[in-house]
């Protein structure tokens, strides 16, 4: 986990993503520019179909941009082949999914340990890291439980532990609380916030929920495939730092263009 907060971790330069649907071209992202420093806690917000998931997928090397560059830890990951992307995901990125996406046949401990095995971490070190994370996400009683024996909140905590176990530079969470009740959502966000503040883990997460987005140090509003503004909730006059005038109900100046495609294709 990051111990050099403030350095530039992620740079997204002019990223576009187009999908072909028959004869129709759908512009999911239409030129995204974004920088994230190590230790940041960024929320990406916007209506359904605005391109949040596509952006997170491209940042997370699980989808390729149609054009543009993505630099992670100074490496241009947009030029990587499949194996390079897989290795980058393994070593530098942690994922938390809306529907947890745990491996159903593995128990809690094995789910958390799985990325370490892929990374060929020695057994003793694996045990040490997994033990620490199990303690961190308070799942000590459930290590031998299978995912379908856990509540939604517990599953998401397993997913958080799994995302952190390889000490990634960046954790990407795509609507991590969408499938949770409000109390559990708060618990999960508190856990993520604590990890950001105490462990200096860099998070980028997307959400629909206005209460959840307020946990972020920085909020990016995306609409129709472009970032139309950003906000710093922790600062005294957040409105002064906005990139432009925006409201949650409409795109600025009515310049919405063709509607962006769905979340993930």
């Amino acid at each position, binding site marked *: 986990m990051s111990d050099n907060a403030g350095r530039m971790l992620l740079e997204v330069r002019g990223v576009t993503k187009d999908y072909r649907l028959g004869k129709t071209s759908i512009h999911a992202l239409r030129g995204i520019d974004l920088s994230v420093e190590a230790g940041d806690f960024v929320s990406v917000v916007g209506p359904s179909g605005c391109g949040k998931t596509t952006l997170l997928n491209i940042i997370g090397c699980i989808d390729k941009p149609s054009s543009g560059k993505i630099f992670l830890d100074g490496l241009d990951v947009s030029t990587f082949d499949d194996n390079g992307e897989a290795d980058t995901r*393994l070593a530098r990125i942690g994922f938390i999914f809306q529907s947890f*996406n745990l*491996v159903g046949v593995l128990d809690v401990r094995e789910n958390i340990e799985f990325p370490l*095995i892929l990374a060929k971490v020695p057994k003793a070190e694996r045990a040490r890291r997994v033990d620490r994370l199990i303690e961190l996400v308070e799942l000590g009683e459930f290590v031998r439980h299978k995912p379908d024996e856990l509540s939604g909140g517990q599953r998401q905590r397993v997913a958080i532990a799994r995302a952190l176990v390889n000490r990634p530079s960046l954790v990407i969470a795509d609507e991590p609380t969408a499938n949770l009740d409000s109390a559990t959502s708060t618990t999960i966000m508190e856990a993520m916030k604590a990890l950001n503040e105490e462990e200096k883990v860099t998070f980028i997460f997307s959400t629909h929920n206005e209460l959840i987005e307020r946990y972020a140090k920085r909020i990016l509003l995306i609409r129709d495939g472009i970032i139309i503004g950003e906000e710093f909730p922790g600062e005294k006059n957040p409105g002064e730092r906005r990139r432009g005038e925006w409201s949650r109900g409409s795109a600025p100046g009515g310049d919405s263009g063709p509607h962006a495609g769905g979340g*993930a294709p």
Partner: protein
Amino acid sequence: MILRLALLSAIKHWRRSLVVAGAVAVACAVMIAIGSLLNGITGSFYDSVIPNSGHVRIEDARTADSLNPLDLELLLPNAAGLVAKIEALGDRRIVDVEPILGFGALLVEDRDVTTLQGGQDPRNLAMRGMGVSPDTRFADNVRFAMKEGSFLPGGRGIALSERAARLVGAKLGTGLLVLVQDRNGEPWYERLVVTGLFATESADFDESTFYIAEETAASMLDAAGMAREVRLLLADRNDAEAVARELAPLTGGGGGGGTTLRIQTWQTINASIFAILLFVKILLGIIMALFAIVSGTIIANSSLMSVMERIREYGTMRAIGLRARSLERLILLEGLMLGALGAALGVGIGFIVIAYLSRGGIDLGGIMESLGLSRYNRPRGDFWWFAFCTLASVVVSLAATAKAARSVGSMGVAESLATSS
């Protein structure tokens, strides 16, 4: 953990795993059973027909075109001399050489005609007589099928099948009249005691053939030193053509009396059987191939369905950092395990089926008898065939799974994650 993951996945999706392993097991068992059946047919052919008919046979060249193969005109006039010449060669490849005197005869019930009721004749049966040495090695199919008595003890008596004996009202120890027409066209009969009763697994053979000592036959037919054919048994049947070539000079005047001789090997003697066996092999091969295709399709579809159900899980693994190749290996490993399990089951089932069928044999009826084979086919298991079937089953399973693995491996991570499953 990859191995454990594959194992756990196979267990979790046990219904599909069962379908895949079951399809492999059935295909493997069918391949084993069909192969063993074929092995039984060919084995029975090599074990009995060839030795009984001889690996090399010398006969009158006119026999092939004769309408009556038992015509006494076709006897080799100096068979004894020919046998002596062959024996004098001292060829170690030749295990045995023997003149066989085949002839047509009528077996007649030996009964006091005064005991017969009005209009009733003694029972009789037209058969082919074989005059052989009492210790002949060209009648093992009969020697090992003796039910009562023994095979021409001390060169005495007559050996015939239980079935034939029943038809002519004879029993072990009773007399039987053997009627022939000798070389001069004169009728001749001999009363012989039934010294042996046999029952082979070929009704055709049992109803058509009896054995007496060659000496007795020659006496009855007035054919001393003559024979229908000279048969040779070789240590290795693959030497037949070479031996036949080397015997050719001996047969120039060997038959005597200006007779043209023909030397045949077991391949030419049994050419028609080979053609039928080839046809049977092709037919069974096609059946096996069809089974492999059907099983492969079932396995491929089941694997594909199983994999598609888990596509989101695989997408998650790839998102975590599992390479596409590693994911394909994981899926193949599962296919390999199920293939190995199915093959093991198939071998077990195949073994049981063969063991069961080997007891009584499968009645293949007159087709086999027309080939001179037993009507009961006993499948023969063969280690290498078992090994081949096991390997082939695993390979088919792997190949079928590879298609599914490739489909998932080539799918994008985002696409996999977006798949609802």
